[in-house]
């Protein structure tokens, strides 16, 4: 709501307009200057928010010595390294495989989380007994607890149960993701009128049919929210995959490879590092471009509930 239009509305309803002088008249000059100032500010913020990404993209095409000598220059002439940094990054560090494992673990975990957590939320919301209530509060409790509390026993337990592989990671993510996901789903299930399910029962549906044919389709919008929140978390998660599968050489996710390559050695190859950072960002940007609206809505919905 901008000030001049308040004044205009106030004038329209015949109210006394006792605002600051330049607000009294919806006059052009002050308003235009104010607008221009806001736009300048907004564009400056674009530079701030995109700057670091532009920085890594520019440097990923530079020779490694130019990165330290001219970090903010555009890669032209001698500095230009073409795609050599990308080729080194993709081949030497098994980065391609890491992308594959990140994809597999994220997609499988999100699918499993949405499928099973929605079912559980439905059951514990509709069936009220002491143990479903207890389960609900335990799940809510788990959202608050920092990972450091459980990390050691979880890793050892996963080892004992042969879960130290990508499929096992899906099981662990289901366990860790259950808190937030069941919480969000339950809030939504509560708002579904019982009459809809009763009608399905009267039409001869079994509880399982009722759930899959009637309730689950209604849960679609909230499923998208849950899927997005979990995808962002699983894709970027570092500590759990590092501790459970990252120590073996076979299964590594993107954050684990980035940390091991960049974090471990002092005389690191800056060019390859920049290329790897860009490669890690690209899938996220693509995902964001396609699902931008859902992501922002999902994040707002998730935060208000959580």
């Amino acid at each position, binding site marked *: 709501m901008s000030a001049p239009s308040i004044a205009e509305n106030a004038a329209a309803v015949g109210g006394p307009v006792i605002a600051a002088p330049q607000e009294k008249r919806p006059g052009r000059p002050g308003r235009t200057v104010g607008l221009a100032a806001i*736009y300048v500010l907004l564009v400056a913020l674009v530079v701030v928010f995109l700057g670091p990404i532009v920085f890594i993209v520019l440097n990923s095409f530079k020779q490694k010595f130019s990165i330290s000598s001219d970090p903010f220059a555009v890669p032209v002439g001698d500095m230009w390294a073409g795609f050599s940094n990308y080729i080194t990054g993709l081949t030497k560090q098994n980065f391609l495989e890491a992308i594959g494992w990140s994809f597999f673990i994220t997609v499988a975990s999100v699918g499993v989380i949405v499928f099973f957590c929605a079912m559980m939320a439905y059951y514990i919301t509709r069936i009220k007994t002491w143990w479903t209530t207890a389960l609900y509060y335990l799940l809510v409790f788990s959202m608050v607890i920092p990972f450091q*509390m459980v990390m050691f026993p979880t890793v050892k337990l996963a080892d004992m149960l042969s879960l130290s592989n990508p499929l096992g990671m899906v099981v662990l993510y289901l366990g860790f993701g259950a808190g937030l996901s069941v919480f969000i789903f339950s809030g939504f299930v509560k708002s579904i009128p019982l009459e809809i399910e009763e009608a399905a029962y009267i039409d001869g549906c079994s509880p399982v049919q009722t759930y899959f044919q009637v309730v689950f389709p209604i849960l679609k919008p909230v499923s998208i929210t849950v899927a997005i929140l979990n995808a962002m978390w699983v894709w970027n998660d570092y500590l759990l995959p590092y501790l459970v599968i990252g120590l073996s050489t076979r299964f590594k996710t993107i954050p684990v490879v980035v940390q091991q390559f960049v974090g471990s050695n002092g005389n690191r190859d800056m060019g390859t590092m920049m290329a790897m950072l860009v490669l890690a960002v690209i899938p996220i940007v693509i995902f964001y471009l396609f699902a931008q609206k859902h992501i922002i809505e999902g994040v707002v919905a998730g*935060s208000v509930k959580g």
Partner: protein
Amino acid sequence: MQRSLKKYFPLFVLPTSAAFLIAFLAPFFIGLYLSFTKFTTITNAEWVGLQNYQRALDPNDGFLGSFWFTILVVVASVITVNLFAFTIAKLLTQKLRGTNIFRTIYFMPNLIGGIVLGYTWQSMINAVLANYGTTLVADWKYGYIGLIILVNWQQVGYMMVIYIAGLQNVPTELNEAAAIDGAGRWQTLRNVTIPMIMPTITICLFLTLSSSFKMFDQNLALTDGAPMDRTQMVALNIVKTMFSQIGRQGVGQAKAVLFVIVVVAIALIQLRATRSREVEA
């Protein structure tokens, strides 16, 4: 109808419950027990009572230092993130053209994970500091400021979208009524807008509080605690105690329990704050 659904419990509840038991519930209680023992795996634990807690709280350990550093980070980031996010949200709800594009761009950094984010900023800050012949890890203040900048970059867009949602729910009649009553911009902001979006402010304050309190990836990637663990936050301190210091797993687990107590206390305060706001609204 409830009765017939009830017997399908193995299908509906068992898979998630089993995963929850393995990933969280059992490890939580095992962890609680292990904090009173000396162990290297979970099967060779030896009861030592409160010894681990004494060691964790020993002033020479660095745990308390990491707590202080964490509080410094939390205070600065909660204030700056929310101020910036609210200001930008206010600018973007002025009914200007193209605000959606700006919103989309500002939100994007929030999707990038802490590790990638940390190294991106590390290389950029080091490139700037190289002009002055120094590096990010030369002085803890650089790492501290760097961490605050990084957290702002990551979180401002996130909080901004929540503030925008809150601001859009304020009925325009209220602003108009305030204008009729002769309120200036600041008065409207203070007496109308802020009280109306108090629930949103509470949510944002606690989201930034708990996420910066538990921060790990960004801390690990940006400075890894350097110099001399002076920029080490609690989560990083616990992980290092547990996995890099030989024979001190028990101390690490005790630190984790202390960490949990603080985090749960914050969550309970949050719950009360949210409840009381709901009554007012």
